[in-house]
């Protein structure tokens, strides 16, 4: 079975400081992992994906994530937060069934303080 656990339901940072959103995964095989962002009243936007290539994945808007198999983690980082980064972030693992479904974490709400 596959699942992800987002370790923080809320994260608050000051503008210009680093962002760290934590995600641990559980998978019985080599997983495909994603981070999506959801702004208020908007759909989900893909930030980045890991599919067994490079373990350090770069995404849009300066975000990146590192796949660490030994720690079963896929934490999302950004060196300097911007006000526009305030949103809900979801860590996602792909299922192994033929339906190719995604399993979402419960989300982390990021607040950026000016």
């Amino acid at each position, binding site marked *: 079975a596959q699942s992800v656990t987002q370790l923080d339901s809320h994260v608050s940072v000051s503008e210009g400081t680093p962002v760290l959103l934590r995600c641990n995964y559980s998978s019985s095989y080599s997983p495909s992992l994603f981070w999506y962002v959801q702004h208020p009243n908007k759909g*989900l936007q893909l930030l980045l994906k890991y599919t067994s290539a490079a373990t350090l994945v770069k995404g849009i808007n300066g975000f990146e994530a590192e796949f660490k198999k030994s720690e079963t983690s896929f934490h999302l980082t950004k060196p300097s937060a911007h006000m526009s980064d305030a949103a809900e972030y979801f860590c996602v693992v792909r299922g192994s069934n033929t*339906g190719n479904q*995604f399993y979402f974490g419960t989300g982390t709400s990021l607040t950026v303080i000016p």
Partner: protein
Amino acid sequence: DAGVTQSPTHLIKTRGQHVTLRCSPISGHKSVSWYQQVLGQGPQFIFQYYEKEERGRGNFPDRFSARQFPNYSSELNVNALLLGDSALYLCASSLGVAAGDSYGYTFGSGTRLTVV
């Protein structure tokens, strides 16, 4: 290029009624998936369709059904609505089933269903 479009954007229904939600995938995408996002939670998988065939079903009651049309658009139907069906319903498209693995899905903005 138009993204994934969903209609309606909002609707209000009464308990016991039936609702139909619609989704048009990105042009060229043959796979459509449906997710339910209850307030404060992550999206939960409902169905995936590819080439008009059901490829996956989540843990939802039989009151939920879906279909995909020859033009790859899709409908999600929910019968005998309950208060607990109030949620944001998201549609996602991808080139194919395997393509969703490599490229991720493109999500629509969703339909906000309120059951009163």
